[in-house]
């Protein structure tokens, strides 16, 4: 672990230190992009959100108060930008999300796998916004419950409620597809 604290890094980045800025970007940008992409299901829009998040970060850094981790702050900004975009347009859910092709599978298996991913992606996309945010942050990004709640601006208890409902909704997809009784 680096001896340089996040606050040192932010102070240096705010003063124009290129290596500190690069460390801040490389340490946080992938997560911000992934969250934005998962929220918006659009590469270009996710890039816009990522760029805008860091534009705001560069402006905020000179007056940075270490009340929150940079990643929490940046992710909260990104989530808000995504909410704004989602309010402006209702995205068309992807019929064919990008997927890896597993050459070891038979065509039938590949089709079934594609169908499964399509189902789960479509189901995640069709979740209510807050449930989707909670699931993306917690289950897909592996964020701790306190940080995920801070990003969303809610309590841990509220986060748990959203996560529970999101997972229950997703389990119905499994039930429909496999015929297995889930609940």
């Amino acid at each position, binding site marked *: 672990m680096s001896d340089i604290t996040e606050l040192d890094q932010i102070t240096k980045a705010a003063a*124009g230190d290129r290596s500190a800025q*690069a460390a801040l970007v490389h340490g946080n940008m992938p997560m911000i992009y992934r969250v934005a992409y998962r929220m918006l299901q659009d590469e270009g829009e996710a*890039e816009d959100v*990522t760029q805008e998040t860091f534009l705001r970060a*560069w402006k905020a850094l000179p007056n940075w108060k270490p009340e929150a981790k940079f990643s929490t702050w940046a992710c909260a900004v990104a989530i808000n930008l995504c909410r704004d975009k989602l309010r402006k347009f209702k995205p068309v859910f992807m019929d064919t999300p990008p997927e890896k092709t597993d050459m070891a599978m038979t065509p039938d298996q590949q089709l079934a796998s594609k169908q499964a991913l399509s189902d789960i992606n479509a189901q995640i996309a069709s979740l209510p916004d807050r449930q989707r945010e909670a699931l993306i942050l917690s*289950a897909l990004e592996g964020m701790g419950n306190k940080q995920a709640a801070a990003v969303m601006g809610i309590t841990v208890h509220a986060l*748990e409620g959203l996560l529970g409902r999101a997972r229950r909704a997703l389990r119905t997809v499994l039930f429909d597809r496999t015929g297995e009784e889930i609940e």
Partner: protein
Amino acid sequence: MKGPMISADRVLELIGIYGSKPSAWPEGERVQAQQLIEADPDFFSKALEKAQSLDSELSNIEVPNVPLGLADAVLANAPDRATVPTKKHFLRFFFPQEFQLPVGAALASLCVGAVTSYSYAGGADFDAHFDSGSAYIQSPESSFDDWLNSMEEGQ
């Protein structure tokens, strides 16, 4: 030291909320939840299986790759060292260049000292008084009264 006990219902809740992997459960409840599951695995097995099937689906979702060049584009908008405004000390108003500060301070103190001593000593008369005083100091055998008299005569 034992923490607060966790109930079986709460463990079922944790599985329903965070999934089957203990690593995803809140840190404060993880150990006790695991202990409770180990104590009665059959009771939790069905809930764990259900959660596991969803976890498996979620883990198969492709992780979006960050587009090449995005980091460079983000960094291109970062503040440059040359354009970052620096906070100026108020003394910079008087001493815009740092190296001039000690030189300026020394010159200022010399000027202030010279003016103060000149005005305090009464201008040109100080020289005459000083010379007479020197004479007194140099002749320890003469008394202070003699020196004072000579001063009065001089005036």
